């Protein structure tokens, strides 16, 4: 009986191995004949000579609790790649997004799959913890990575080839405090944050460091954890009884949606202030958008902007995927265009190794200026951190509206 069982499982395992082996051999063929892009890559048909097709890969949570971010990035990157390929420039892309389910271990597996596929430039990972893991891999493998939205400083720390399109967490925390103080939104502030989350903790730390110097008084400071994030009555009551005029919510939108609903039930209506994780709350399934009315958030992207490129992008995204793109989507879109600009300027060719391209990209990104949907005149310093200005947004009538 035991033997029958082990045989059966061995069979499954052999099958699995064959499956990996199969995938491997086909990618081997792909990478061993890298030169003529015209024949080996099906994506841009009848590409003329001089056209360079680069293999662009990224990992993100396409399934699971953070799926809205991963899908936004994958969708927007696909739009950008389609546009660039259709425009027929010299630099074109083949895109491959792999699921990492917001988990470091799976992200490394996904990254290895991309490496087998022959990835030349990387979009890193969408969320912070997985990206810290994959950035260590891209760093040791010398593959250049530009992450759309992994905002932890650990992603770029001590790595010369890791760059970010979004603000770092510390940046968001201090910028939020600055914004609240500058606009005189409130002086008594409550903070509810998730103390087992890298992102929430990073924003919280710098907000708390910046707040006292700006005349903000934090009257209530409460936390919640994974698995303990459905009942917020204690946190809300604490903020309410301490007379907070504004509640700062450095968290993703799922718990925030519950906080809004429960605060309303408790008859508490402060100013709500979020950061970029709040983005996406309006597209949350089953969420009553009237609850988010008047919520402010700090994000570099405004889907209602009258900028022509933004409008074109939003329109295309809506046609293709049916909802309004959030800031993550815009960041991913910008990443692809930033790559296109940098690859074009550097004169990189598709038959170069990832390592050669990496050196060229480091040189380009630290010197170039890029105009995208999430800001004009973006620059990067050698640490990989981006410089651009955040925009305040408010939710009115179920849509994001720019505050300034």
């Amino acid at each position: 009986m035991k033997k029958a069982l082990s045989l059966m499982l061995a069979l499954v395992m052999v099958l699995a191995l064959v499956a990996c082996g199969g995938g491997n051999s086909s990618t081997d063929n792909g990478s061993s004949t890298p030169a003529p892009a015209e024949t080996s890559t099906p994506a841009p048909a009848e590409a003329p000579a001089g056209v360079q097709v680069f293999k662009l890969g990224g990992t993100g949570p396409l399934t699971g609790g953070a799926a809205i971010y991963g899908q936004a990035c994958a969708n927007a990157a696909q739009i950008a790649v389609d546009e660039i390929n259709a425009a027929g420039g010299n630099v074109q892309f083949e895109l491959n997004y792999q699921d990492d389910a917001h988990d470091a271990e799976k992200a490394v597996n996904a990254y290895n799959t991309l490496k087998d596929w022959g990835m030349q430039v990387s979009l890193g990972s969408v969320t912070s913890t997985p990206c810290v893991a994959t950035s260590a891999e891209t760093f040791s493998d010398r593959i250049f990575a530009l992450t759309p939205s992994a905002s932890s400083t650990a992603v770029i720390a001590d790595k010369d080839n890791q760059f970010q399109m979004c603000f770092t967490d510390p940046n968001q925390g201090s910028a939020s405090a600055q914004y609240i103080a500058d606009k005189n939104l409130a002086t008594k502030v409550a903070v509810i944050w998730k103390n087992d989350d890298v992102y929430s903790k990073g924003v919280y730390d710098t907000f708390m460091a910046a707040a006292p110097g700006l005349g903000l008084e934090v009257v209530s400071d409460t936390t919640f954890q994974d698995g303990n994030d459905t009942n917020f009555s204690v946190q809300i009551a604490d903020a309410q009884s301490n007379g907070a005029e504004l509640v700062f919510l450095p968290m993703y939108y799922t718990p925030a949606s519950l906080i809004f609903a429960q605060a309303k039930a408790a008859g508490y209506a402060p100013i709500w202030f979020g950061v970029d994780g709040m983005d996406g709350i309006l597209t949350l399934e089953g969420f009553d958008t009237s609850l988010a009315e008047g919520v402010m958030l700090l994000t570099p992207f405004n889907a209602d902007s009258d900028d022509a490129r933004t409008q074109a992008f939003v329109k295309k995204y809506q046609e293709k995927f049916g909802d309004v793109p959030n800031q993550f989507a815009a960041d991913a879109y910008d990443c692809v265009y930033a790559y296109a600009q940098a690859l074009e300027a550097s004169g990189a060719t598709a038959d170069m190794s990832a390592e050669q391209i990496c050196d060229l990209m480091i040189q380009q990104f630290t010197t170039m200026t890029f105009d995208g949907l999430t800001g004009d005149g973006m620059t990067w310093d050698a640490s990989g951190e981006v410089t651009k200005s955040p925009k305040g947004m408010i939710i009115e009538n179920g849509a994001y509206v720019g505050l300034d």
Partner: protein
Amino acid sequence: MKKLNLTKTSRNNFLTYGFVILFYIVLQSIAAGGHMSSMLKGQLVPICAYVVMAISLNLTVGVLGELSLGHAGFMSVGAFMGTTTAIALKSVVASPTLRLICALIVGAIFAGIVGFLVGIPVLRLNGDYLAIVTLAFGEIIKSIFNNLYLGLDSHGFHMSLLDNKLHMEPEGKLIIGGPMGIGGIQKIANFTVGFGLIMVCLIVIFNLVNSRAGRAIMAIRDNRIAAESVGIPITKYKMMAFVTSAAMAGAAGALFALNFSTFVANKFDFNTSILVLVFVVLGGLGNMLGSIVAAAALTILPEALRQFASYRMLVYAIVLILVMLIRNNPTIRSFFDRFRLSKKGGAEE
């Protein structure tokens, strides 16, 4: 003639050793030939860690007969303590392999101590209480490490809970950063040490099971009252199996953690405990070889299914259900039994 001296169990044990060694040699030679995909290469150490988790849980569930739902908690203790050791020893021990082995040992010791502490009240209980308490234990461990800050400077270790109040010297290094987990780990885990760990765990388990203590443990599993009536100290033997199992899980955790540049406490949650339990149930309770194969196959499977893109996890679930069904199908079972009998008959002639 020699073959006749071997009992059925020791034949099974040698089959298991042989299987593991064979796989190690095959995979190593594929890797040496440069034919291995990065995907598979990156999976080797996690597979070893999951295999050790599976056989250690099998000791609790299959041999001891108690359900543990917090095995990832022991893995977490081993991971945090082992990694801390590896980081702290960085300047003292030059050889990465030696440092890795130290980390594994420290991880195992700490997890064993925690297993002992959990076991004192719990193993005196009957029935399903161990399952409930280990479930709670897993959550407690997760919360503790999510709120623990640990730093190292020239004065030694600094520790604080809830908030980062370490007051370290400027050149001090923050090792455990609360919800940030441990970051910036030097990846020193390798397949050979992982293989060694599997072999050591197998030897320990097989020798424990075949010893006087092992027979006492199985007697407790089969009939607690009968075992007690012939004078077997129940708590002592339960504790022996449980602590051994916890220590192995700790070593597996340390191996797992040192294969990634970062990890967080939330990785070792209830889902991970259940995943390991799935390996054990699929492989067969008390069947070490089955656990090994199930752990390896189910770790590779989700990655091998990437070609199905969005349907990946759906296919994974279907495969899992099919394997469970096939495993319990009497027709297929008897087919393989016949196959086995005829082969055995042939061999003995």
